């Protein structure tokens, strides 16, 4: 566990860089984490992030299939938004825990 500063805010993160408290998240923090991942966030990205955060709040085990069925984007689109990490990178940028599902 460590503390990092994103967008002028100190947040607690795990060794893998995931926020430990999703309520510390905001859009500016997301944009800075995304830049670390080499991603510039668009409105489409935020739609996915909002969906992931809402599902995480419900205690759902997240999968890319779920995002693909959300109507926001299909799976191919999700890979284009978050290359080489459709669930891990998106979860990290969304300020929610590292995904625990195998799909």
């Amino acid at each position, binding site marked *: 566990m460590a503390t990092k500063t994103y967008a002028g805010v100190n947040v607690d993160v795990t060794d893998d860089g995931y926020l430990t408290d999703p309520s510390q998240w905001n859009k500016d923090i997301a944009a800075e984490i995304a830049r670390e991942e080499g991603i510039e966030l668009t409105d489409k990205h935020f739609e996915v992030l909002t969906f992931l955060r809402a599902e995480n709040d419900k205690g759902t085990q997240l999968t890319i299939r779920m995002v693909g069925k959300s109507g926001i984007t299909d*799976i191919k689109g999700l890979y284009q938004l978050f290359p080489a990490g459709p669930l891990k990178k998106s979860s990290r940028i969304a300020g929610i825990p590292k995904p625990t599902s195998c*799909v």
Partner: protein
Amino acid sequence: MAEEKKETPLKKVLIIVAKGSIEDIYAGLVMANGAVMEGIETKLFFTFFGMDAIIKKRQNKAKTATVGNPAMRMPGGLPFPTLLGTLPGVEAGVSAMMKSQMEALDVPPVDEFIEMIVAGGGELYACKLAFDMFKLKREQLDDNVIDVITVGQLYEMAGGENTQIIFT
């Protein structure tokens, strides 16, 4: 002082699916989908009975063996008697249950799972030997199959550092 671990991430995996039961097919597909999601270049190679996973008419009809499967259990955990597994309908019932349990974990049917892997950049190949042996036609195969290739072509694809071949 702890020794510093020097690890370099995996870059490419070739996953070989050679058996056609539900669990054998899914083992390969879960590994492949997981690799794609990690940003690892992924190639799937289907051979022998594993070809069922890419034969359009069979891919969603895989079964779990209820005979000759000593690890098989009844719901509740008691051993599954082999003789019970021979009764008509038992294999179908067990297979349906396997599929519904996986669906509950958001694991898709085989054809959809393949679409997901391909959407992420994974590639599918069929084995020429098995293709010829089973007298298959190209149009019987899933449209996502890129090519029917020899084992030599498979090894040509396996070059480069940090490549692993996984046989399920």
